[in-house]
């Protein structure tokens, strides 16, 4: 009997061994850094790309969890008595602003070689913005050709019955992308006007997703005609992947995000977290954003070909601070009216 047990256990152990070995084989840290614990709202593959570069450049070890930015905020709030991570990397600053208002972040001014624009960081440096991007529409070319349409060029184009159950985006309460969209509409039309508009818009929605980027590939596949997302995501995950999609922007103006990075208050690796914050703004790190078509904030960094610059798009005077502070109320209003 024991023999049998031993054999089974040995097999299980053997299965796990090569993988364990791989884990312990990593090169030793250059300095005596602790392992940095991080929450990221970037997609796993992209987060991994930056984090590996960071690990290589500093010798620090990073453990991260990928969640949508709404989930990160929820998680940090739930864990405020016992924070499990020290850095929050990525996601629109809307969520960072909510978090800062709730006192969940630790202010820190990163060491940079350039002056970070006033719009791109909190007044008290509770968060800093490391890339920018605007809300735009991603549309399937085949759908446009079939219906002899131009890509939507105004918010009201999205109300056209031709798009009935053909538009997808995320829930404003789970995704920073979708919340930025919702906050943009509110800032353009006022809360009541925005609710009325969205109620009409909702008839054209096929399904809401959890994450802000899923609608892009789905528009590419033809599972929906139009998605609403950030320009850099549309370029990197739609057009550059080879999906038959086009990007367009509403002529009335659109909202934009500043991607936020912040220290979590009470995080157990504050020194390591600061090293990471500094690194994010280096030219070396900002050059990496090219691969995912994000617009760098470091003026020395290179800009990806085909990336959409904020100066090329009609923008509204988007007030991220207001969006962040009113999040709970605006989300509740949305759910009560839209019922999803």
């Amino acid at each position, binding site marked *: 009997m024991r023999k049998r047990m031993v054999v*089974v256990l040995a*097999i299980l152990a053997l299965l796990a061994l090569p993988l364990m070995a791989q884990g312990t084989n990593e090169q030793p840290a250059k300095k005596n850094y602790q392992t940095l614990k991080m929450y990221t709202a970037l997609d796993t593959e992209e987060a991994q790309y930056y984090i590996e570069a960071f690990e290589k450049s500093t010798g620090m070890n990073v453990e991260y969890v990928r969640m949508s930015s709404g989930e990160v905020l929820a998680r940090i709030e739930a864990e405020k008595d016992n924070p499990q991570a020290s850095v929050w990397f990525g996601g629109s600053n809307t969520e960072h602003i909510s978090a800062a208002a709730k006192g969940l972040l630790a202010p820190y001014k990163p060491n940079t070689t350039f002056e970070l624009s006033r719009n791109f960081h909190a007044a008290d440096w509770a968060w800093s913005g490391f890339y920018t991007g605007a809300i735009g529409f991603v549309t399937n070319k085949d759908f446009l050709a079939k219906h002899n349409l131009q890509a939507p060029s105004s918010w009201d184009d999205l109300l056209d019955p031709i798009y009935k159950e053909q538009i997808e985006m995320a829930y404003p309460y789970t995704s920073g992308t979708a919340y930025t969209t919702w906050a943009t509409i509110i800032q353009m039309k006022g809360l009541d006007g925005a609710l009325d508009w969205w109620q009409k818009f909702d008839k054209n929605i096929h399904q809401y997703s959890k*994450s802000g980027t899923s609608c892009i*590939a789905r528009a590419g596949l033809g599972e*929906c005609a139009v998605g609403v997302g950030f320009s850099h995501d549309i370029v990197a995950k739609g057009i550059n992947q080879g999906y038959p999609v086009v990007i367009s922007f509403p002529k009335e103006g659109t909202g934009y995000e500043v991607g936020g990075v912040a220290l979590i208050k009470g995080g157990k690796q504050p020194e390591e977290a600061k090293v990471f914050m500094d690194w994010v703004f280096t030219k070396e790190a900002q050059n990496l954003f090219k691969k995912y078509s994000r617009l760098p904030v470091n003026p020395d960094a290179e800009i990806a070909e085909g990336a959409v610059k904020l100066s090329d798009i009609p923008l509204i005077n988007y007030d991220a601070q207001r969006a962040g502070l009113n999040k709970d109320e605006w989300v509740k209003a949305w759910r009560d009216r839209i019922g*999803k």
Partner: protein
Amino acid sequence: MNNKHSERMGDFKKMVGEPFLLVSIIVVFYLLIVFVIFPIYKVVKTSFVYDGHVSFRNYAEVLSHDYYIRPLWNSMILGLLVATIGTVIGFVFAYAITRTPMKGKTVFRLVATFPMVSPPFVVALACILLFGRAGIFKGAIGNIYGLTGLTIVEVIAYSPTAFLSLFGILQSIDPALEEAAMVCGASRGKVFRSIILPLATPGVVSAWLLVFIQSLADFGNPMILSGNFSVLSVQAYLQITGMNDLARGSTLAILLLIPTLLAFYTQKYLVSKKSFVTVTGKPTASTIKNLEWYVKLPVYVVCVFFAGVVVLFYGMVVWGSFQRLWGIDKTFTLQNYVQMWAVGKDYIRDSLIIAAIVTPICGLLSMFIAYLVTRKRFFGRGLMEFSAMLTFAVPGTVVGIGYILAFNTSSALMPVTLTGTATIIIALLIFRNLPVGIRNGIAALQQIDPSIEEASIDCGANSGTTFWRITLPMITPALFSGLANSFVRSMTAISAVIFVVSGGWNLITVAILGFVDNSQYAQAAAMSILLIAIVLIALFLMQLATDRVGKGMKVGLMEGEQS
């Protein structure tokens, strides 16, 4: 009365005389209270607290909002449909394999159980490729986003559960009974109505219930395919992870729990009252000869059709995983595997380490609890069995929420905070997978005469030695099937663990869901295939090990899921 009393006193004396037994009973109780009762209690409690006061306001609020009520009904409708269709298909499959001279039974068995070793939402992905708006057979079955699509994918994913439990039941009904009835002049229909159905009823009811619970807790498929048909498990998840609203999330979880618990205990009560099982201890393998064509034909058609659907769906996943751009550019490529490996190797390592820890602990603990409740008599025995089996009837969503609530801070029961550690994942998987092992263990023990163990005790061995040296070797097949089951489930679980994963420890199913979320379907498919391969290889190795050390014993899916 007097007699019973003195008997009890005797039991008590025996226990005091055996410190090992006493200590182990206390330890098992402690574990069950902390990891089963406490989390569920926390969910119940949280749902009744509003602004720090005990109140029904969460319920009032939930029940007065359409966006909470509709998912409740949707979940019920979906659960009823999936459970009913899934049970019928499972029954037909079990009937075909135990009763008809169908060819290629091994293949059919394999195909019918295949969806169990894969993460469930893979089927939803394949469904989009096949029947989506831009799919290969677009429009063939109407709009797949919503009830239709969800019913199809959940039937594919969960009817194997029904098949496995019905297979065990039908196998234990001797076809000689039916042949005797036929010889006496009963028609095939009469035999079916008056022999097979009554004998199989308990199994059918419990299979139905199993599928119903799985459908209620299903999380991956509705995330991908729900369209405007929102379901409760996803709403509870979004409420908690998206809005950080534990109170309302818990309330939704309780709404998910009530129908399941009701159904579970009604069936237990009803079935135990009128069960006439003819367990002979050995499965009878002979099939019925001369089965009429009008029985065989529909049975074969259903089997071939369902097997074809399973092959089609999984074939799509395999094909998709080698496409350069899922569904668009179908050039063959291995890049998805390369990308998936770059992101996923840590997840796979973590998953394997956790499964390797969970599997033996879960296997041994379940056998030990089975031993205690069948062989020992002590105060609270019924309670022990009830609480150990409780997670069986509780949807994964509820368990997951309970674990965050219970272990996010320290408490008198659990002095250290478990959130963020591997321990919480391991504990969750162990206690979630216990019931199947315990059921197998109890079934095995009931067929073994306790006199051998009594002899061991009479010769001076204590209960621990007796369990380890005598009982366990006798129920090895049950142990191994418990091991296989808990390994498979640890590797493929999602609906409960999604709530407790953290930075240090990530699971492969969570990674796949991340890919899906981000519409990286090909990478999700590649990783699913890797996961299926790992599980199959592990099962194969375990089978090999058992074959080598114990002739004639079988482990694997078939026995593993029979419950």
